[in-house]
């Protein structure tokens, strides 16, 4: 149906293509759960992709490359955090300016490194590769970033749902004043969430330049991904699993868009490539509409209904976008 890709291959490509996006979107989820919108994603992804590639190229070490990507992300996180949490400036304004700044900074500083060969992260065989059925072999032969992304989904899910620290972080995003009243330090918690989130965004950026779209250049190929990640967080209702599913859906649309070219020869190829972006955002709008009623009623009696409700209802952290000022 979709070009000549067999089903396992399709799954494998979708997994591979979605991994960096999952990491980025989860980083943003972490920050937003604590109440801070980091709108700078689109630039930060490129900036960290550039930093990661340059460091990996210079040192020959992929590990250092990924770390450099993470720290480049974190550096921007410091700015977002300081400006919005401690100076109480508009998170949207700071993030937007930073998005454009980081993008251009990446292009400017990365120019000498464009289109040169550098280290790339390769696919590796899963353990017990040889006794797996061949379709599983295909699906599970993936670069480490894929495993990291999947692991991160579960880690973050566990963190938010079961851990004490995760609960504290969520509580700050819902009602920082109440968290303060219970002895937490909302500003500090938010700062940590932003920093770790930005670190993950940086890792995601590095996953682009070191694994999915190896190399650096203008364009790198990760442009526009930051905006999609922001939309995914909403699409996923701030729930790690759903965010990840959203990222996979987006990757599926991108991968299959290429095959659609043959099915609809009259439609220009470019249209299929732009389509996932608006589709993503309009799914979001649709979701918003369809869950509005049920969110208003919000009464789920038995545990099964509660489970379904948790799965499909999306709700922003209550204090999102407003930083806490202590009286």
């Amino acid at each position: 149906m979709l070009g000549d890709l067999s089903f396992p291959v399709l799954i494998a490509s979708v997994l591979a293509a979605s991994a960096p996006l999952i990491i980025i979107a989860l980083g943003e989820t972490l920050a937003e759960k604590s109440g801070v919108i980091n709108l700078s994603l689109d630039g930060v992804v490129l900036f960290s992709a550039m930093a990661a590639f340059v460091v990996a190229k210079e040192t020959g070490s992929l590990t250092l490359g990924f770390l450099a990507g993470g720290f480049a992300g974190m550096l921007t996180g410091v700015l977002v955090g300081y400006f919005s949490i401690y100076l109480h400036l508009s998170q949207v304004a700071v993030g937007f300016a930073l998005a454009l700044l980081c993008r251009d900074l990446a292009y400017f500083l990365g120019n000498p490194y464009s289109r040169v060969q550098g280290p790339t992260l390769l696919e590796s065989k899963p353990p017990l590769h040889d006794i797996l059925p061949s379709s599983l072999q295909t699906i599970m032969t993936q670069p480490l970033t894929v495993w990291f992304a999947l692991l991160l989904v579960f880690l973050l899910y566990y963190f938010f749902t079961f851990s004490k620290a995760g609960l504290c972080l969520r509580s700050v995003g819902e009602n920082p004043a109440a968290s303060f009243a219970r002895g937490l330090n909302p500003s500090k918690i938010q700062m940590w969430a932003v920093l770790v989130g930005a670190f993950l965004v940086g890792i995601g950026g590095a996953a682009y330049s070191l694994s999915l779209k190896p190399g650096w250049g203008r364009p790198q190929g990760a442009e526009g991904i930051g905006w999609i990640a922001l939309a995914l967080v909403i699409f996923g209702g701030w729930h790690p699993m759903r965010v990840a599913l959203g990222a996979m859906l987006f990757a599926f649309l991108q991968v299959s868009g290429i095959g659609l070219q043959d099915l609809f020869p009259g439609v220009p190829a470019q249209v299929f490539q732009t389509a996932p972006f608006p589709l993503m955002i309009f799914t979001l709008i649709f979701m918003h509409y369809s869950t509005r009623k049920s969110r208003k009623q919000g009464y789920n009696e038995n545990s099964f209904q509660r489970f379904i409700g948790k799965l499909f209802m999306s709700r922003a952290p209550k204090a999102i976008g407003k930083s806490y000022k202590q009286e």
Partner: protein
Amino acid sequence: MDVKFQNISKNFGSVKALTDVTLTAHSGTIHGLIGENGAGKSTLMKILTGYQSKSGGKILIDGSEIQLNDPRQASKHGIGMLYQEPMDFTPLTVLENFSLGSPYQGRRELRFSLETLTIRFGFHLDPDRLVEQLTVGERQQIELLRLIHCKTRILILDEPTTGISPAQKEALFPALQQLAADGMNILLVSHKLEEVASLCSEVTVLRHGRITHHAHAPFHFPELLTAMFGSVPEQKNKTHCRTQGSSILLFENVEATGERQGLQHCVVAVNEGEVIGLAGLDGAGQSTLLRLAAGLAIPNKGNVQLFGNTLPKSNSASQQAQKLDVSFLPADRLEEALFADMSLSDHFSLRGRQSSFWRSIKKAQTLAKNGIREFSIKGNPEDTAQDLSGGNQQRLLLALLNPHSRLVLLENPTRGLDIRSGQWVWHYLLNTLSPKTAILFSSPELDEILHYSDRIIVFHDGEIVMDKAVNETSHNAVATAMTGMKEAIQ
């Protein structure tokens, strides 16, 4: 552990919330703290939990001074507070709310602790329910259990019974007494004299940020009421020359959400020229009623009729009401009625229903100048609204009031005003506006209501518990009705 407040004072900018408060609460007792709205009770308690900083004074525990810069330090000293406005996380579950701020425990143990405590206090709480689906009372129950679970030794309860049913009270009160008997120091903030009387061994009354009364059980209610609300003023002869005419505002069995309990079974008719005071504790339903009449809130059931027109149940209701010359002045002026960063003359430009496309800045300035002169506003046309003092903000709002208003709705019209400004406001409302204008106002000051209104409507927990002409009632009757004491109403 005994707590001693020594010469505590607290300023919010120029507002003196507390002045020189000295008070001791002993362990093993329940100490009551009462006073009218805005007396400073909550502020005093928040200082004890480190949630707010104090401007002056000391806090001593068992005789030694302690530093309380944030709630964490307070909780180390065993101080915990049940806040008046629920300080919880509505999208989280009961269990999660219970665990936040508690010492670390496994989930299973936590659940077990919660369940044991609910049984002990006779509450009914499903640990997995979302808190947003609970009533305010249930939310306070969680907080209370959490505080007890956290081994709090100084327990502050700021109006713990706002949403609690009589049956739950019967479980709660003995439990509190038991806790006190076990050596806990409980500070109880309340408006409900009955509760205070049945629980506390000592009571302190705050008024305008100062201590006005201190008493040990048994209590003499009239004395307490006087200390709370001020001296009962003698009834002056009213020299109103207002004409009372046909009915202009009708509430037909209206039900609406808003404030704490919303509004239920509300039937009210207002006539031309009437001045009606809405009495009740904070959030008992007065504000919801005013907003319904102004078209700013939409009833869930029933209709609001203005001058024979039923207000539409849509966003256009407020414009409709304004077309019918209804004016509304909210209590929170900067939040709800003024534009903090805009100049006074800009406010005058916005007023009214001029249809011209352009606005004349000159004209607005002239209007502003006239307004400033007529209403003695301390300020210039170019000043922004936030530059004005609270009193002058209220004068500005009055200057902006539609002079042809047929119905004026005021929420706490003298909030933050000194006595003379307050009198001036009333003079303006009663004498400058047309005598046919009806005035509906709410106020936390009982004296004000008794003094200016022709008719008093008293609210309690979202229902109207009394609706009488002012001559047919008394200060005491209203005060007791406000606090929900049924027997005194008859």
